[in-house]
């Protein structure tokens, strides 16, 4: 049976193992008491009624966390800002101590014999809240008299960050022939992997090891953060994640619940299980985006861009968690010049705390947002000054001959060919005949628009010093690969097996992959920043040669020739004497157990690579039609040409592009996390938070173009997040193009029928007024 991916068999038969699928004899269950107020002082938490509820084993409060000397959730890197100021952080405690700062913040946890009993008991945990003033938005949080969320964060501003040369940009604007400005809003989203967060902790007292089953992007990163939070030594913690139902950036590190379950399991000496309800994840899992970017550009008399400036605001939510601070600073700055040769760049961003769920990474983590902003700015300027958006881009693109290109604020784009990619996309989209299609649409009373999004994004450099991989040859002639990077749908098992299979001449079906096996003691990055293929994959590419080198002397002995007379090709070792060769696998099976230790085959070796970021880019072109009578928008054409360097698996790359583009379409047309002024979330379930369903994007033509990077052994660039970076600007530019054509100005996402209809009516009123 030929299935497309190794992981498919178990996933299509229901025999995969997601975190909630783990059960252990004697396990108990937990439920979390969460704050119902956006901002309140906690005067008292009375757990007595809950503790006397039948089946309840324990109720944990902040006092237990303090007694266990747990640390807050990791608050991210110490980013420096204007004048060398270091970010000040409001840290999220495992359980709220004397104050809650967002609806959904964990206050207590009930442990009971059954999940139902735990949930029932949560209802009778009495929390005496004294409600405090709320700042639910950036505007409210920055007011002079706004309540401050944290004693150590002045004015709710953890940091004002800058990048680039402000004086040079000011000078360029002073000398500009014309300028253009636009503010875009990348609204708050919820990443919502389909597998709800689940944790099953089993403390193995005999080994002294606490085993945590939970969805994660990388077991080592998860463990390192749990070590930091719980103080438990790394060797006493094991993370198990067999199948992970999506991650999208939300699953890099633990939430408060992980620490609480560990505490409960060790204290009770029983397995403890928590399966989150989706509605509590809407208020209890990290949110994404939440950025406002105000961009301006300056043009000379030839319409060459002389400077770009951004003034950004990032809503971090109530606490600094994980990547929150990184998104609105570094990730917005690195590609702020987009695909353009811009002599002067300057951006300043203000990080702001509000009484909302903390924001961390969501697919792209700032890179789609800046790609969106820069490409909207380009289109807006073209529209404002009557320039052709294609020619305007061509004129200002960084030329192929200019690579490696150092941007005005210090990013080094290693390679690219933006003109060729643009041309390919224009062809694919039949751009030149758009006006005919617009006329046909008009005849059917539809407003049709076309939009280009040329994104450049920086895929992840990775936090680990290197990516290590290893392999183990099994008795049955199969090969097991090990690395750190944990999959959550990307197809690591298939891609790594393909790389090794091609290199070693082994059927990839006989190669399996294990992520994060602690016994391997490997160093490496988890999945994130679109880097698993080119980071871990490149290390596997290096492993091929090391396996062959290691096996060659054994092959020589087997073939009775000198090692230097052995050649390897298509999985076979051949001697120069023309005798019948031996396959690597035959050789390996014959040597199984020869070291006296079946765990250690003589061909078991490891390899590594050190690779930083690279710059995937591409051109997405969308066409949309608006029905002005209803405000309903339809994506009628979508074409994407992505420049990803060498592509290893075209089908899986296309899958990543599809998924990313449709997540972008979700943000563009339907998704938004909305708070009311009191900090209550108005979009707390899939009934209110409209994720795309089948048909959201009805067709998509994808193609790739390769300018291989020399920055990693595979010559590949990241693809995981580029779909969002391409689709946000392409879809939005298409929308604005359709509106502009009938004299209607720009609007913010999401372009829901109601909002679009209102926008059109408002424009009609203004035009007749």
């Amino acid at each position, binding site marked *: 049976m030929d299935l*497309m991916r190794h992981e498919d068999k178990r996933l299509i038969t229901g025999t995969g193992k997601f975190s909630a699928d783990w*059960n252990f004899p004697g396990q108990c269950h937990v439920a979390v008491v969460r704050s119902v107020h956006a901002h309140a002082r906690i005067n008292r938490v009375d757990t007595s009624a809950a503790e006397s509820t039948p089946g309840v084993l324990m109720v944990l409060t902040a006092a237990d966390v303090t007694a266990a000397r747990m640390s807050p959730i990791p608050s991210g890197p110490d980013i420096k800002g204007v004048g060398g100021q270091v970010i000040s952080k409001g840290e999220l405690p495992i359980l709220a101590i004397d104050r809650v700062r967002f609806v959904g913040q964990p206050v207590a946890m009930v442990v009971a014999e059954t999940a*139902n009993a735990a949930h029932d008991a949560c209802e009778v945990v009495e929390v005496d809240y004294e409600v405090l003033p709320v700042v639910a938005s950036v505007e409210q949080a920055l007011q002079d008299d706004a309540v401050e969320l944290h004693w150590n964060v002045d004015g709710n501003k953890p940091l004002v960050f800058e990048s680039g040369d402000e004086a040079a940009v000011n000078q360029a604007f002073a000398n500009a022939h014309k300028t253009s400005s636009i503010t875009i809003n990348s609204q708050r989203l919820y990443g919502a992997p389909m597998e709800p967060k689940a944790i099953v902790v089993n403390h193995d007292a005999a080994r002294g090891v606490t085993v945590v089953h939970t969805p994660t992007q990388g077991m080592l990163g998860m463990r390192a953060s749990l070590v930091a939070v719980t103080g438990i030594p790394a060797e006493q913690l094991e993370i198990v994640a067999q199948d992970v*139902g*999506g991650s999208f950036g939300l699953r890099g590190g633990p939430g408060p619940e992980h620490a609480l379950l560990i505490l409960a399991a060790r204290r009770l000496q029983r397995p403890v299980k928590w399966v989150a309800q989706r509605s509590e994840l809407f208020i209890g899992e990290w949110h994404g985006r939440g950025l406002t970017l105000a961009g301006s550009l300056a043009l000379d008399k030839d319409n060459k861009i002389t400077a770009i400036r951004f003034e950004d605001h990032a809503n971090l939510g109530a606490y600094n968690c994980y990547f929150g601070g990184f998104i609105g600073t570094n990730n917005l700055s690195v590609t702020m010049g987009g695909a353009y040769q811009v002599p002067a760049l300057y951006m300043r961003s203000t990080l702001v705390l509000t009484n909302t769920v903390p924001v961390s990474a969501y697919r792209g983590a700032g890179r789609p947002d800046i790609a969106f902003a820069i490409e909207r700015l380009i289109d807006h300027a073209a529209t404002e000054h009557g320039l052709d958006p294609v020619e305007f881009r061509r004129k200002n693109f960084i030329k192929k001959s200019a690579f490696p290109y150092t941007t005005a604020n210090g990013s080094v784009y290693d390679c690219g060919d933006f003109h060729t990619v643009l041309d390919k996309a224009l062809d694919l989209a039949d751009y030149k005949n758009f006006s005919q299609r617009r006329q046909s649409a008009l005849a059917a009373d539809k407003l049709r628009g076309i939009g280009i999004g040329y994104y450049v994004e920086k895929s992840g450099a990775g936090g680990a010093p290197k990516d290590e991989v290893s392999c183990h040859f099994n008795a049955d002639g199969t090969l097991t690969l090990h690395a750190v990077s944990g999959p*959550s749908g990307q197809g690591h098992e298939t891609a790594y097996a393909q790389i090794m299979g091609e290199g070693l001449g082994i059927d990839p079906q006989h190669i399996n992959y294990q992520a994060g096996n602690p016994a391997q003691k490997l160093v490496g990055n988890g999945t994130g920043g679109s880097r698993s293929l080119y980071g871990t994959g490149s290390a596997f590419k290096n492993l091929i040669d090391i396996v062959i080198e290691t096996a060659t002397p054994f092959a020589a002995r087997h073939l009775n020739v000198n090692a230097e007379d052995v050649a390897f090709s298509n999985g076979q070792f051949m001697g120069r004497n023309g005798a019948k060769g031996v396959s690597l696998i035959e050789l390996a099976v014959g040597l199984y157990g020869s070291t006296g230790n079946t765990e250690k085959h003589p061909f078991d070796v490891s390899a590594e690579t050190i690779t930083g970021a690279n710059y995937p880019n591409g051109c997405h072109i969308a066409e949309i039609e608006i029905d002005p009578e209803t405000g309903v928008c339809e994506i009628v054409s979508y074409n994407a040409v992505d420049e990803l360097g060498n592509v290893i698996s075209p089908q899986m790359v296309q899958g990543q592009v599809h998924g990313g583009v449709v997540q972008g379409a979700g943000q563009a047309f339907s998704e938004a996390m909305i708070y009311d002024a009191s900090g209550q979330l108005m979009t707390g379930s*899939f009934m209110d938070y409209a*994720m795309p*369903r089948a048909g959201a994007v009805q067709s998509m033509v994808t193609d790739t173009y390769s300018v291989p990077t020399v920055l990693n052994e595979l010559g590949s660039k990241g693809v995981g997040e580029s779909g969002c970076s391409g689709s946000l600007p392409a879809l939005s530019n298409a929308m604005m193009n359709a509106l502009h054509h009938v004299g209607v100005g720009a609007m913010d996402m999401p372009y829901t029928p109601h909002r679009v209809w209102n926008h059109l009516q408002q424009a009609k009123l203004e035009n007749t007024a």
Partner: protein
Amino acid sequence: MVASTASAAVGRGKMKTVSLQVNGRAASMEVEERTLLADALRDELGLTGTHIGCDTSQCGCCTLQMDGHTVKSCTVLALQAEGSAITTIEGLAPADNLHVVQKAFSNCHGLQCGFCTPGMIMATIELLGHTPDPTDDQIRQGLSGNLCRCTGYLNIEASVRAAAAELATQKASLPEPRTSVPGGRGRR
């Protein structure tokens, strides 16, 4: 029963017995009245292929067949399934003989993380059962109760089309057409 007294003592509500047929086998389980079918199958029978992705019946991950029709098993109380025949994702491919729809999802790369996949496959089987040659709109309608966050649906739609084509081919080539759509109650 001793067991249920013990359960009550540790915080269970009133326990009842429900008897049903699951994937062709008789099964019986003790559940609280409020227990949902999805939870009962997962927790009492260990059939964890039926996934639970939300608590508002929006995501469709828990879709299965009850008496030949798909239901979201989070909208059915376990007690309501008394006497019915249930087919879950685990019951589709006895002895490794994959269902056409299962194969199509893999071949068309209609899954990435795979969490929504059991529900998607069950919904597809229902759709193709009553609409063997669906239009694109009918496919989207047939999947409208199921959310996927990874694939963007394009390859899921392709999987449905491929499965429909394959089923049609099989039907044409078999003298006595065997349905590949599990028939709920009538199933082995």
